[in-house]
């Protein structure tokens, strides 16, 4: 354990500082919700906008690939080979290295029945894990409900709460990379008072009050250096981006929390801008390079600490490119998993490029199989309880 880092997370809190004098570090960590040393951590990376899976894990030996994308396909010599006629996008050298070391699992053709080509509906489906009728709770929010609902257990780096982390009785906390220093005159005691529930108030107002209580609890857990302002005007812009700080900053905060051994079990981070209907090839490569750099540095940094990262997007793109050198909304797409205990390599069946569903890939692995594996192997919970009885599972443990 890195005590110095731990301590950095605990200073600046009036309550903790006062308590530190009488209780000592170990007790403080216990009250802040210290964790089982064997407990693992899940980091979920959402790629907003629909990442083009076919130009991410590329079946370059399949003649149908080049045929569908005459001006849009990569040439074999540009690619990072994975064997079996598939290769990674040239923007992903770090992930390619992890693959070579047997640490990156690529699950091909992940999707769900009756694919929805709306960003928002499909993202709802991915976040609720309810493809038939997306409800109002996210799959990790439901997990949070089952473990007692402490918001410190599930943290998002976006300024607004992703549906993913909304449970029916609890919600994760958002810590978008900013510092959690309270303004002058605002004491933890005041937060706790305003965080009490009051008789007869509307659910919205009760939630607003609960945020004060959550804030009092979360700020005991994390303080971080202020991050640079995100100059959104320079970021690649498409109509379906996420709204979060740069991914490397988000993952830096996660790494710091993991190193300090905080109670948090689930982190949600995101990278937006993948909705590339036009001029998509270079833009996607640049975005994937951002993912690659941030993710491979993070994987190195937290290796051996029981962290598993999962990367997904709401859908892939149409097999055939459009004439704007972009791709329209599609269906199944690969997922990446990397981390301790994950068996690297190519998993699942690659979807056929010729046997299509209205121009789109047919999925070969149900996304709930992946979620169930993460819930069971990383979060030590019962997937059926969280995934409406779903019993599928992948064999991914190393």
């Amino acid at each position, binding site marked *: 354990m890195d005590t110095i880092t731990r301590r950095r997370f605990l200073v600046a809190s009036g309550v903790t500082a006062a308590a530190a004098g009488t209780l000592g570090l170990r007790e403080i960590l216990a009250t802040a919700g210290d964790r089982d040393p064997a407990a693992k951590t899940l980091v979920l990376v959402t790629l*907003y906008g629909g990442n083009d899976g076919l130009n991410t894990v590329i079946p370059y030996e399949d003649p149908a690939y080049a045929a569908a994308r005459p001006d849009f396909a990569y040439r074999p010599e540009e690619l990072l080979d994975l064997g079996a006629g598939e290769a990674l996008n040239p923007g992903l050298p770090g992930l390619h290295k992890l693959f070579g070391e047997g640490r990156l699992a690529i699950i091909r053709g992940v999707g769900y029945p009756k694919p929805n*080509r*709306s*960003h*928002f*509906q499909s993202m709802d489906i991915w976040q609720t894990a309810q493809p038939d009728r997306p409800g109002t709770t996210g799959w990790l929010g439901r997990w949070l409900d089952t473990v007692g609902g402490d*918001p410190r257990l599930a943290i998002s780096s976006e*300024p*607004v*709460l992703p*549906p993913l982390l*909304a449970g029916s009785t609890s*919600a994760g*906390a*958002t*810590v*978008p990379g900013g510092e*959690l220093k*309270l*303004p*002058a*005159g605002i004491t933890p005691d*005041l937060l706790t*008072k*305003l965080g*009490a529930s*009051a*008789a*007869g*108030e*509307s*659910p*919205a*107002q*009760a*939630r*607003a*009050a*609960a*945020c*004060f209580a*959550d*804030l009092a609890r*979360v700020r005991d857990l994390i303080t971080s250096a202020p991050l640079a302002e995100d100059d*959104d*005007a320079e970021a690649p*812009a*498409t*109509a*379906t981006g996420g709204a979060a700080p740069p991914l490397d900053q988000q993952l830096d905060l996660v790494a710091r929390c993991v190193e300090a051994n905080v109670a948090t079990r689930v982190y949600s981070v995101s990278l*937006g801008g993948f*909705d590339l*209907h*036009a001029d998509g090839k270079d833009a996607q490569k640049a975005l994937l390079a951002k993912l690659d750099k941030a993710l491979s540095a993070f994987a190195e940094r937290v290796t051996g600490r029981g962290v598993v990262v999962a990367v997904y997007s709401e859908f892939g793109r149409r097999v055939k490119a*459009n*004439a*704007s050198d*972009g791709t*329209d*909304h599609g269906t199944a797409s690969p997922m990446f998993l990397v981390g301790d205990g994950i068996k690297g390599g190519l998993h699942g069946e690659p979807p056929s490029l010729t046997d299509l569903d209205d121009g789109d890939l047919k999925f070969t692995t149900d996304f709930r199989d992946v979620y169930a594996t993460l819930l069971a192997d990383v979060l030590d919970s019962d997937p059926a309880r969280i995934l409406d009885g779903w019993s599928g599972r992948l064999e991914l443990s190393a």
Partner: protein
Amino acid sequence: MTDRRLVMHLLRRLSFGPTAAEVDAAVRAGYDATLERLLAPVALPEPPDLGPEPDPGGSREGRQAARKKQREQVGVLGRWWLSRMVADPTAAEKLTFFWHGHWATSAQKVRSARLMLAQQQTFRRYGTGPTGPFVRAMLRDPALILWLDGQKNTRKAPNENLSREVMELFTLGVGAYTEDDVKAGARVLTGWQVDRAAGTARLVPRRHDDQAVALLDGRADGRADGVDSYADLIVRQSAHLPFLAGRLWARYGGPGPAPAVTGRDATSLLRAICAAPEFAAANGTLVKQPIEWLVGALRQLRIEPDGTEPTLRALGQIPLRPPSVGGWPEGAAWLTTSSTLTRLRAAQKLAAKAEIDDLTGPDRLEALANRLAIDTWTDRTHATLTPIKDPRRLLALALASPEYAIH
């Protein structure tokens, strides 16, 4: 609910944060007359002077300088709009804000402040009236076309982005059209090109698919005005007005399904919503969006919007920059630990600039509720605020309170 509370509820929802004087006047006028006053047509505002569209020239430096200038112009427009919201005691700018979140177009990709302004003026010009002319105008809107890749949509390879979102998010909703309709709609919309320098969109015949297509329950012809027949087909669909009523209800009414209201435009739908018993019952159920929270506070505290952009940025809602074509989130998504912290900080800055003379006496909590158009303090908040004597500190906490976070 008392008459005063009901009128206050109406004002909070249809306008941005009513002042105590506005509430008093509306109580005297009565609910129905206030509703009519709020919805009465207003003149199109004189637009701000943004200066000419920057010319990027041919060089990299030229492009960078032009981008920088464009960002400045978008900043000018955003500040001008915030000051319009603060100045407007009617429903007009709130509705413009609704339409902006509905046809959610971001300056991040459009870049041009003039095109963003032109779209906003279209909201003001057409957004209160029949939806047919409104949708016709929006399908030719240069900012929307750029935002959803309409200029890349050609006969040889249709780009479905605009066609899909028009039906899914702007006019009909999921389930009221098919994937084939998306493809057919994309063909109708082929060939529209935006001239950034001129600030106009026009049809380029050689890029346009001039074949008539089967679309929805009718046909759209392939002539230059096919886009109008597409708009007319859409607004004729039985799903269109109920979809719009549902979107208006979500932002003005409450969570859950909209009551059965009828109307043929946003004005008549809003009038029907505000007359429905469900509307009165929905008091206190909506979470204020950050812009609603901030603009309301600025109006009630009588302070200028200068210097408030960092607050909106930290709260995740920058005017002219919605996060995606789906617009901003609604409801509890805004209620997070980080937004609570940001509101605590921002409230202190706002309170530092405000008049506080009326917040020192024994009835200061009542005066505070009156000033901020809050129905009542819960026992929790009342007990928390009572010991606080410093009027600025009191005002700041009230602005950040759970009671002020919702309406």
